[in-house]
Protein backbone atom coordinates (compact mmCIF):
# COMPACT_ATOMS: atom_id res chain seq x y z
CA UNK A 1 0.00 0.00 0.00
CA UNK A 2 1.27 3.46 -0.87
CA UNK A 3 1.56 6.10 1.84
CA UNK A 4 -0.84 9.03 1.81
CA UNK A 5 0.84 12.27 2.86
CA UNK A 6 0.47 16.03 2.63
CA UNK A 7 3.68 17.59 1.37
CA UNK A 8 4.92 20.68 -0.42
CA UNK A 9 6.69 20.18 -3.76
CA UNK A 10 10.04 20.81 -2.09
CA UNK A 11 9.32 18.36 0.73
CA UNK A 12 8.18 15.77 -1.78
CA UNK A 13 11.42 16.22 -3.72
CA UNK A 14 13.50 15.89 -0.55
CA UNK A 15 11.59 12.74 0.44
CA UNK A 16 12.26 11.27 -3.00
CA UNK A 17 15.97 12.04 -2.52
CA UNK A 18 15.90 10.38 0.91
CA UNK A 19 14.38 7.27 -0.63
CA UNK A 20 16.92 7.31 -3.49
CA UNK A 21 19.70 7.70 -0.88
CA UNK A 22 22.38 9.07 -3.24
CA UNK A 23 26.10 8.80 -2.40
CA UNK A 24 26.70 12.55 -2.56
CA UNK A 25 24.50 15.65 -2.37
CA UNK A 26 26.30 18.96 -2.91
CA UNK A 27 24.07 22.02 -2.78
CA UNK A 28 23.93 25.73 -2.11
CA UNK A 29 20.69 27.39 -0.97
CA UNK A 30 18.69 29.58 -3.32
CA UNK A 31 15.01 30.51 -3.19
CA UNK A 32 12.70 28.73 -3.91
CA UNK A 33 14.67 25.44 -3.96
CA UNK A 34 16.43 26.06 -0.61
CA UNK A 35 14.12 23.74 1.29
CA UNK A 36 15.21 20.70 -0.72
CA UNK A 37 18.81 20.60 0.56
CA UNK A 38 17.53 21.92 3.91
CA UNK A 39 15.14 19.01 4.43
CA UNK A 40 17.73 16.66 2.98
CA UNK A 41 20.47 17.79 5.37
CA UNK A 42 18.06 16.93 8.20
CA UNK A 43 17.82 13.40 6.80
CA UNK A 44 21.64 13.30 6.76
CA UNK A 45 21.84 14.47 10.39
CA UNK A 46 19.17 11.99 11.48
CA UNK A 47 21.03 9.16 9.81
CA UNK A 48 18.11 8.24 7.57
CA UNK A 49 20.46 8.39 4.54
CA UNK A 50 24.12 7.38 4.03
CA UNK A 51 24.76 10.40 1.84
CA UNK A 52 27.86 12.57 2.05
CA UNK A 53 26.39 16.09 2.18
CA UNK A 54 28.76 18.75 0.84
CA UNK A 55 27.83 22.28 1.92
CA UNK A 56 29.59 24.10 -0.91
CA UNK A 57 30.20 27.83 -1.27
CA UNK A 58 28.43 28.31 -4.61
CA UNK A 59 26.33 26.53 -7.21
CA UNK A 60 29.34 26.35 -9.53
CA UNK A 61 31.01 24.29 -6.82
CA UNK A 62 27.82 22.31 -6.18
CA UNK A 63 27.73 21.08 -9.76
CA UNK A 64 31.52 20.62 -9.79
CA UNK A 65 31.33 18.43 -6.67
CA UNK A 66 28.50 16.41 -8.26
CA UNK A 67 30.62 15.95 -11.40
CA UNK A 68 33.57 14.73 -9.33
CA UNK A 69 31.40 12.36 -7.29
CA UNK A 70 29.58 10.99 -10.32
CA UNK A 71 32.83 10.51 -12.27
CA UNK A 72 34.25 8.71 -9.26
CA UNK A 73 31.42 6.20 -9.61
CA UNK A 74 28.86 7.54 -7.16
CA UNK A 75 25.34 8.79 -7.49
CA UNK A 76 25.28 12.56 -7.03
CA UNK A 77 22.39 14.99 -6.71
CA UNK A 78 21.88 18.70 -6.15
CA UNK A 79 18.98 21.15 -6.36
CA UNK A 80 18.80 24.73 -7.50
CA UNK A 81 16.78 27.60 -8.98
CA UNK A 82 17.23 30.64 -11.17
CA UNK A 83 20.59 32.38 -10.77
CA UNK A 84 21.93 29.36 -8.94
CA UNK A 85 21.47 27.45 -12.18
CA UNK A 86 23.01 30.37 -14.06
CA UNK A 87 26.10 30.17 -11.87
CA UNK A 88 26.27 26.42 -12.57
CA UNK A 89 26.05 27.01 -16.30
CA UNK A 90 29.66 26.19 -17.16
CA UNK A 91 29.53 22.93 -15.21
CA UNK A 92 26.07 22.03 -16.55
CA UNK A 93 27.71 21.48 -19.95
CA UNK A 94 30.65 19.60 -18.41
CA UNK A 95 28.23 17.21 -16.67
CA UNK A 96 26.36 16.34 -19.85
CA UNK A 97 29.40 16.16 -22.13
CA UNK A 98 31.24 13.84 -19.73
CA UNK A 99 28.06 11.72 -19.77
CA UNK A 100 27.50 11.85 -16.03
CA UNK A 101 23.91 10.99 -15.05
CA UNK A 102 23.54 13.55 -12.26
CA UNK A 103 19.92 14.19 -11.21
CA UNK A 104 18.80 17.65 -10.12
CA UNK A 105 15.46 19.06 -9.01
CA UNK A 106 15.16 22.47 -10.67
CA UNK A 107 12.59 24.67 -8.92
CA UNK A 108 11.82 27.20 -11.62
CA UNK A 109 12.25 30.88 -10.85
CA UNK A 110 12.77 33.94 -13.03
CA UNK A 111 16.38 34.70 -13.92
CA UNK A 112 17.45 38.15 -12.72
CA UNK A 113 17.38 40.94 -13.56
CA UNK A 114 15.74 42.93 -12.40
CA UNK A 115 15.76 40.84 -9.25
CA UNK A 116 12.75 38.56 -8.90
CA UNK A 117 12.31 35.44 -6.80
CA UNK A 118 9.05 34.18 -8.29
CA UNK A 119 8.17 31.59 -10.85
CA UNK A 120 8.72 31.53 -14.54
CA UNK A 121 10.71 29.20 -16.77
CA UNK A 122 13.54 31.52 -17.81
CA UNK A 123 16.06 29.57 -15.71
CA UNK A 124 15.16 26.24 -17.33
CA UNK A 125 15.20 27.70 -20.84
CA UNK A 126 18.83 28.71 -20.29
CA UNK A 127 19.87 25.04 -20.27
CA UNK A 128 17.51 23.78 -22.93
CA UNK A 129 20.37 23.13 -25.35
CA UNK A 130 22.85 21.88 -22.76
CA UNK A 131 22.27 18.15 -23.22
CA UNK A 132 20.31 17.63 -20.00
CA UNK A 133 17.12 15.62 -20.07
CA UNK A 134 14.36 17.92 -18.78
CA UNK A 135 11.12 16.69 -17.22
CA UNK A 136 8.40 19.14 -16.19
CA UNK A 137 5.93 18.53 -13.36
CA UNK A 138 2.41 19.89 -13.00
CA UNK A 139 1.93 18.88 -9.37
CA UNK A 140 3.88 17.88 -6.26
CA UNK A 141 3.00 14.29 -7.06
CA UNK A 142 4.56 14.60 -10.51
CA UNK A 143 7.69 16.28 -9.10
CA UNK A 144 8.05 13.30 -6.74
CA UNK A 145 7.27 10.67 -9.38
CA UNK A 146 9.62 12.22 -11.95
CA UNK A 147 12.46 12.13 -9.42
CA UNK A 148 11.82 8.48 -8.59
CA UNK A 149 12.00 7.66 -12.33
CA UNK A 150 14.97 9.96 -12.99
CA UNK A 151 17.96 7.73 -12.22
CA UNK A 152 16.59 4.79 -14.21
CA UNK A 153 16.41 7.10 -17.25
CA UNK A 154 19.65 9.04 -16.75
CA UNK A 155 21.80 6.00 -15.89
CA UNK A 156 20.50 3.77 -18.71
CA UNK A 157 23.46 2.57 -20.80
CA UNK A 158 21.93 3.99 -24.00
CA UNK A 159 21.46 7.39 -22.34
CA UNK A 160 24.05 8.34 -19.67
CA UNK A 161 22.93 11.96 -19.48
CA UNK A 162 22.14 14.24 -16.55
CA UNK A 163 18.50 14.99 -15.82
CA UNK A 164 16.63 17.97 -14.36
CA UNK A 165 13.17 17.63 -12.81
CA UNK A 166 11.43 20.98 -13.11
CA UNK A 167 8.54 22.27 -11.03
CA UNK A 168 7.10 25.75 -10.54
CA UNK A 169 8.72 27.77 -7.78
CA UNK A 170 6.31 28.60 -4.91
CA UNK A 171 3.26 27.50 -6.92
CA UNK A 172 4.06 23.83 -6.35
CA UNK A 173 7.34 24.00 -4.39
CA UNK A 174 5.72 25.73 -1.42
CA UNK A 175 2.10 24.58 -1.72
CA UNK A 176 1.04 21.60 0.32
CA UNK A 177 -0.93 18.98 -1.60
CA UNK A 178 -2.13 15.47 -0.97
CA UNK A 179 0.44 13.07 -2.33
CA UNK A 180 0.93 9.32 -2.57
CA UNK A 181 4.40 8.21 -1.60
CA UNK A 182 5.87 4.85 -2.50
CA UNK A 183 7.27 2.74 0.35
CA UNK A 184 11.03 3.17 0.95
CA UNK A 185 11.91 -0.44 0.11
CA UNK A 186 9.92 -0.34 -3.13
CA UNK A 187 11.68 2.86 -4.22
CA UNK A 188 15.04 1.28 -3.39
CA UNK A 189 14.19 -1.73 -5.51
CA UNK A 190 12.79 0.38 -8.36
CA UNK A 191 15.73 2.79 -8.50
CA UNK A 192 18.33 0.06 -8.05
CA UNK A 193 22.04 0.52 -7.48
CA UNK A 194 24.27 2.52 -9.80
CA UNK A 195 26.88 0.36 -11.46
CA UNK A 196 28.82 2.48 -13.93
CA UNK A 197 30.91 0.61 -16.47
CA UNK A 198 33.88 2.98 -16.11
CA UNK A 199 34.62 5.13 -13.07
CA UNK A 200 37.57 6.92 -11.52
CA UNK A 201 37.74 4.95 -8.27
CA UNK A 202 38.08 1.64 -10.09
CA UNK A 203 41.68 0.72 -9.24
CA UNK A 204 41.64 -2.09 -11.78
CA UNK A 205 41.08 0.38 -14.61
CA UNK A 206 42.84 3.74 -14.41
CA UNK A 207 40.99 6.19 -16.66
CA UNK A 208 41.24 9.83 -17.68
CA UNK A 209 37.98 11.84 -17.68
CA UNK A 210 37.53 15.06 -19.64
CA UNK A 211 40.63 15.10 -21.85
CA UNK A 212 41.40 17.68 -24.54
CA UNK A 213 39.01 17.14 -27.44
CA UNK A 214 39.98 19.12 -30.53
CA UNK A 215 38.87 19.36 -34.15
CA UNK A 216 39.25 15.65 -34.82
CA UNK A 217 36.94 14.53 -32.01
CA UNK A 218 34.53 17.07 -30.46
CA UNK A 219 32.05 16.90 -33.37
CA UNK A 220 31.68 13.14 -32.91
CA UNK A 221 31.35 13.43 -29.13
CA UNK A 222 28.55 15.98 -29.58
CA UNK A 223 26.86 13.59 -32.02
CA UNK A 224 27.07 10.87 -29.37
CA UNK A 225 25.33 13.21 -26.90
CA UNK A 226 22.63 13.97 -29.47
CA UNK A 227 22.14 10.24 -30.11
CA UNK A 228 21.91 9.59 -26.36
CA UNK A 229 19.24 12.30 -26.15
CA UNK A 230 17.30 10.65 -28.99
CA UNK A 231 17.65 7.27 -27.24
CA UNK A 232 16.27 8.77 -24.02
CA UNK A 233 12.76 9.03 -25.46
CA UNK A 234 12.34 5.25 -25.62
CA UNK A 235 13.95 4.74 -22.20
CA UNK A 236 11.67 7.36 -20.60
CA UNK A 237 8.64 5.43 -21.88
CA UNK A 238 10.02 2.05 -20.72
CA UNK A 239 10.69 3.41 -17.22
CA UNK A 240 7.21 4.99 -17.16
CA UNK A 241 5.73 1.57 -17.96
CA UNK A 242 7.53 -0.02 -15.00
CA UNK A 243 6.51 2.90 -12.82
CA UNK A 244 2.89 2.39 -13.78
CA UNK A 245 3.13 -1.27 -12.73
CA UNK A 246 4.46 -0.14 -9.37
CA UNK A 247 2.09 2.75 -8.67
CA UNK A 248 -0.75 2.70 -11.18
CA UNK A 249 0.21 6.22 -12.20
CA UNK A 250 0.65 6.56 -15.95
CA UNK A 251 3.22 8.86 -17.57
CA UNK A 252 4.03 9.55 -21.20
CA UNK A 253 6.12 12.07 -23.09
CA UNK A 254 3.22 14.47 -22.61
CA UNK A 255 -0.29 14.33 -21.23
CA UNK A 256 -3.23 14.69 -23.60
CA UNK A 257 -6.20 16.08 -21.73
CA UNK A 258 -9.43 15.82 -23.69
CA UNK A 259 -7.57 16.30 -26.98
CA UNK A 260 -9.00 13.35 -28.98
CA UNK A 261 -11.74 15.42 -30.62
CA UNK A 262 -10.47 18.85 -29.58
CA UNK A 263 -10.64 21.69 -32.09
CA UNK A 264 -8.68 24.08 -29.88
CA UNK A 265 -5.64 22.91 -27.94
CA UNK A 266 -3.49 24.77 -25.43
CA UNK A 267 0.11 23.55 -25.03
CA UNK A 268 1.91 24.38 -21.79
CA UNK A 269 4.17 23.01 -19.05
CA UNK A 270 4.19 22.70 -15.26
CA UNK A 271 1.46 24.05 -12.98
CA UNK A 272 -0.40 26.10 -15.61
CA UNK A 273 -1.63 22.76 -16.96
CA UNK A 274 -3.74 22.42 -13.81
CA UNK A 275 -5.36 25.81 -14.39
CA UNK A 276 -5.94 24.91 -18.04
CA UNK A 277 -7.63 21.61 -17.13
CA UNK A 278 -10.23 23.52 -15.09
CA UNK A 279 -10.96 25.77 -18.07
CA UNK A 280 -11.09 22.82 -20.47
CA UNK A 281 -13.64 21.13 -18.21
CA UNK A 282 -15.80 24.27 -18.07
CA UNK A 283 -15.69 24.71 -21.84
CA UNK A 284 -16.49 21.03 -22.41
CA UNK A 285 -19.63 21.47 -20.28
CA UNK A 286 -20.68 24.17 -22.71
CA UNK A 287 -20.04 21.80 -25.61
CA UNK A 288 -16.88 23.59 -26.73
CA UNK A 289 -14.23 21.19 -27.97
CA UNK A 290 -11.22 22.37 -25.95
CA UNK A 291 -8.18 20.36 -24.96
CA UNK A 292 -4.76 20.57 -23.32
CA UNK A 293 -1.43 19.09 -24.29
CA UNK A 294 0.90 19.23 -21.30
CA UNK A 295 4.57 18.68 -22.13
CA UNK A 296 6.27 16.44 -19.57
CA UNK A 297 9.40 15.61 -21.54
CA UNK A 298 10.78 18.90 -22.86
CA UNK A 299 14.25 17.45 -23.58
CA UNK A 300 14.38 15.29 -25.62
CA UNK A 301 11.57 17.15 -27.38
CA UNK A 302 9.05 14.59 -28.68
CA UNK A 303 8.79 16.08 -32.17
CA UNK A 304 6.84 13.41 -34.08
CA UNK A 305 4.52 12.63 -31.18
CA UNK A 306 3.62 16.28 -30.46
CA UNK A 307 3.04 17.02 -34.13
CA UNK A 308 0.76 14.00 -34.46
CA UNK A 309 -1.17 14.82 -31.28
CA UNK A 310 -1.90 18.33 -32.54
CA UNK A 311 -2.56 17.40 -36.17
CA UNK A 312 -6.36 17.27 -35.93
CA UNK A 313 -6.78 20.62 -34.13
CA UNK A 314 -8.17 23.70 -35.89
CA UNK A 315 -6.14 26.16 -33.83
CA UNK A 316 -3.50 25.83 -31.13
CA UNK A 317 -1.99 28.17 -28.56
CA UNK A 318 1.47 27.52 -27.12
CA UNK A 319 2.11 29.11 -23.73
CA UNK A 320 5.68 30.09 -22.86
CA UNK A 321 6.51 31.04 -19.28
CA UNK A 322 9.75 32.64 -20.51
CA UNK A 323 10.20 35.26 -23.18
CA UNK A 324 13.02 34.39 -25.54
CA UNK A 325 13.42 38.11 -26.34
CA UNK A 326 14.26 37.17 -29.91
CA UNK A 327 11.37 38.63 -31.90
CA UNK A 328 10.35 35.10 -32.86
CA UNK A 329 8.36 33.65 -29.97
CA UNK A 330 9.15 31.52 -26.93
CA UNK A 331 11.19 28.31 -26.88
CA UNK A 332 8.21 25.96 -26.57
CA UNK A 333 6.42 27.76 -29.40
CA UNK A 334 9.43 27.34 -31.65
CA UNK A 335 9.82 23.66 -30.77
CA UNK A 336 6.14 22.88 -31.31
CA UNK A 337 5.79 24.81 -34.56
CA UNK A 338 9.05 23.43 -35.93
CA UNK A 339 7.92 19.88 -35.03
CA UNK A 340 4.68 20.45 -36.96
CA UNK A 341 6.36 22.01 -39.99
CA UNK A 342 8.89 19.19 -40.30
CA UNK A 343 6.06 16.64 -40.03
CA UNK A 344 4.11 18.50 -42.70
CA UNK A 345 1.22 19.45 -40.45
CA UNK A 346 -0.23 22.91 -40.77
CA UNK A 347 -2.51 24.16 -38.00
CA UNK A 348 -2.86 27.88 -37.15
CA UNK A 349 -0.68 28.43 -34.07
CA UNK A 350 -0.21 31.37 -31.74
CA UNK A 351 2.24 32.00 -28.94
CA UNK A 352 1.56 33.59 -25.56
CA UNK A 353 4.31 34.73 -23.25
CA UNK A 354 2.71 34.59 -19.82
CA UNK A 355 3.31 34.49 -16.06
CA UNK A 356 6.68 36.27 -16.22
CA UNK A 357 8.26 36.89 -12.82
CA UNK A 358 5.45 35.07 -11.03
CA UNK A 359 2.59 37.09 -12.57
CA UNK A 360 -0.52 35.16 -11.59
CA UNK A 361 -2.20 33.24 -14.39
CA UNK A 362 -5.84 32.55 -13.64
CA UNK A 363 -8.61 30.59 -15.33
CA UNK A 364 -9.82 33.91 -16.77
CA UNK A 365 -6.55 34.30 -18.64
CA UNK A 366 -6.75 30.77 -20.04
CA UNK A 367 -10.41 31.38 -21.01
CA UNK A 368 -9.28 34.42 -22.99
CA UNK A 369 -6.77 32.19 -24.83
CA UNK A 370 -9.56 29.81 -25.85
CA UNK A 371 -11.68 32.82 -26.89
CA UNK A 372 -8.82 33.94 -29.13
CA UNK A 373 -8.53 30.42 -30.56
CA UNK A 374 -12.28 30.32 -31.24
CA UNK A 375 -11.91 33.57 -33.21
CA UNK A 376 -9.07 32.05 -35.24
CA UNK A 377 -11.14 28.94 -35.98
CA UNK A 378 -14.06 31.17 -37.09
CA UNK A 379 -12.07 33.57 -39.27
CA UNK A 380 -9.30 31.15 -40.26
CA UNK A 381 -6.76 33.97 -39.95
CA UNK A 382 -3.98 34.62 -37.48
CA UNK A 383 -3.36 38.34 -37.15
CA UNK A 384 -0.50 38.26 -34.67
CA UNK A 385 1.15 35.00 -33.61
CA UNK A 386 3.31 36.63 -30.89
CA UNK A 387 1.04 37.54 -28.00
CA UNK A 388 1.17 38.28 -24.28
CA UNK A 389 -1.13 37.02 -21.56
CA UNK A 390 -1.65 39.11 -18.43
CA UNK A 391 0.65 41.91 -19.55
CA UNK A 392 -0.39 45.37 -18.38
CA UNK A 393 -0.41 47.39 -21.56
CA UNK A 394 -2.51 50.27 -22.83
CA UNK A 395 -4.71 49.72 -25.89
CA UNK A 396 -5.13 46.36 -27.62
CA UNK A 397 -2.50 43.70 -27.32
Amino acid at each position, binding site marked *: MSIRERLSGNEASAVAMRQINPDVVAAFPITPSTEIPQYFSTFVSNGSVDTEFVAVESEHSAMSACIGAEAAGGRAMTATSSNGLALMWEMIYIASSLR*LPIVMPLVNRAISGPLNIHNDHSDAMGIRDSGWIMLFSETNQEAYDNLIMAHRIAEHKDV*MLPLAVCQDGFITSHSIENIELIEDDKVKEFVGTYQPEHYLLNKKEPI*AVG*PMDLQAYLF*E*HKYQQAEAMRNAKKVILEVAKDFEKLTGRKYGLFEEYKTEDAEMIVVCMNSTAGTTKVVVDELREKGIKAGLLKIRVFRPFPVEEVAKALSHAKAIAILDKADSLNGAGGALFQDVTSAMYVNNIHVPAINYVYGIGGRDTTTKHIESVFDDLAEIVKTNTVTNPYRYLGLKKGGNQ
Partner: protein
Amino acid sequence: MSDVKINVNSPVEELTPGGTIYEAGNAKCFTTGDWRSIKPVFLSEKCKQCGLCFPVCPENAIPVGKDLKRKDFNYDYCKGCGVCAKTCPFGAIEMKEEGED
Protein backbone atom coordinates in the same frame (compact mmCIF):
# COMPACT_ATOMS: atom_id res chain seq x y z
CA MET B 1 52.75 1.31 -22.99
CA SER B 2 49.05 1.52 -23.64
CA ASP B 3 47.49 0.56 -26.89
CA VAL B 4 45.02 3.32 -27.78
CA LYS B 5 43.43 2.47 -31.11
CA ILE B 6 41.47 5.71 -31.49
CA ASN B 7 42.96 8.14 -34.00
CA VAL B 8 41.88 11.22 -35.96
CA ASN B 9 40.16 9.05 -38.57
CA SER B 10 38.11 6.96 -36.11
CA PRO B 11 34.36 6.99 -36.83
CA VAL B 12 31.93 8.09 -34.12
CA GLU B 13 31.00 4.48 -33.30
CA GLU B 14 34.56 3.79 -32.12
CA LEU B 15 34.95 6.83 -29.88
CA THR B 16 34.38 6.49 -26.14
CA PRO B 17 31.51 8.47 -24.55
CA GLY B 18 32.74 11.88 -23.40
CA GLY B 19 36.19 11.09 -24.77
CA THR B 20 37.07 9.21 -21.58
CA ILE B 21 40.38 7.37 -21.92
CA TYR B 22 40.16 3.88 -20.45
CA GLU B 23 43.92 3.26 -20.30
CA ALA B 24 46.76 4.83 -18.34
CA GLY B 25 50.19 5.92 -19.59
CA ASN B 26 49.04 6.95 -23.04
CA ALA B 27 50.77 10.35 -23.18
CA LYS B 28 53.44 8.38 -25.07
CA CYS B 29 50.97 7.94 -27.94
CA PHE B 30 50.90 11.69 -28.44
CA THR B 31 54.13 12.82 -30.10
CA THR B 32 54.35 16.42 -28.97
CA GLY B 33 57.63 16.94 -30.83
CA ASP B 34 55.48 18.38 -33.64
CA TRP B 35 54.96 21.49 -31.52
CA ARG B 36 58.68 22.42 -31.59
CA SER B 37 59.79 25.64 -33.31
CA ILE B 38 63.37 25.68 -32.03
CA LYS B 39 65.38 22.53 -31.48
CA PRO B 40 68.22 21.62 -29.13
CA VAL B 41 71.32 20.16 -30.81
CA PHE B 42 73.54 17.90 -28.73
CA LEU B 43 77.26 18.67 -29.15
CA SER B 44 78.71 15.45 -27.72
CA GLU B 45 82.32 16.62 -27.96
CA LYS B 46 81.62 19.44 -25.44
CA CYS B 47 79.54 17.24 -23.11
CA LYS B 48 81.21 16.22 -19.81
CA GLN B 49 78.31 13.92 -18.84
CA CYS B 50 77.74 16.01 -15.72
CA GLY B 51 74.12 14.86 -15.59
CA LEU B 52 72.43 18.27 -15.11
CA CYS B 53 70.38 18.33 -18.31
CA PHE B 54 68.15 15.27 -18.24
CA PRO B 55 66.48 15.88 -14.83
CA VAL B 56 65.23 19.31 -15.95
CA CYS B 57 63.61 18.09 -19.17
CA PRO B 58 59.82 18.36 -18.70
CA GLU B 59 59.20 15.80 -21.44
CA ASN B 60 61.75 13.18 -20.42
CA ALA B 61 63.15 13.62 -23.92
CA ILE B 62 66.83 13.19 -22.97
CA PRO B 63 67.44 9.45 -22.80
CA VAL B 64 70.07 8.08 -20.42
CA GLY B 65 71.70 4.75 -21.23
CA LYS B 66 72.63 1.86 -18.94
CA ASP B 67 76.15 3.31 -18.98
CA LEU B 68 74.61 6.35 -17.20
CA LYS B 69 75.58 8.56 -20.14
CA ARG B 70 73.08 10.82 -21.80
CA LYS B 71 72.28 10.08 -25.45
CA ASP B 72 70.95 12.28 -28.25
CA PHE B 73 67.53 13.96 -27.90
CA ASN B 74 64.28 12.13 -28.46
CA TYR B 75 62.74 14.53 -30.96
CA ASP B 76 59.36 12.72 -30.93
CA TYR B 77 58.65 14.38 -27.58
CA CYS B 78 61.07 17.34 -27.23
CA LYS B 79 58.98 20.55 -27.47
CA GLY B 80 62.09 22.74 -27.80
CA CYS B 81 61.61 24.61 -24.53
CA GLY B 82 65.36 25.17 -24.17
CA VAL B 83 65.59 24.54 -20.42
CA CYS B 84 68.35 21.97 -21.01
CA ALA B 85 70.43 24.45 -23.04
CA LYS B 86 70.14 27.05 -20.24
CA THR B 87 71.18 24.43 -17.66
CA CYS B 88 74.22 23.07 -19.50
CA PRO B 89 77.42 24.64 -17.99
CA PHE B 90 79.55 23.58 -20.97
CA GLY B 91 77.66 24.90 -23.99
CA ALA B 92 77.05 21.37 -25.16
CA ILE B 93 73.43 22.08 -26.13
CA GLU B 94 72.80 24.62 -28.86
CA MET B 95 69.29 25.88 -29.72
CA LYS B 96 68.63 26.19 -33.46
CA GLU B 97 65.61 27.27 -35.51
CA GLU B 98 63.63 24.22 -36.56
CA GLY B 99 64.34 23.42 -40.21
CA GLU B 100 67.89 24.86 -40.11
CA ASP B 101 70.68 22.39 -40.51
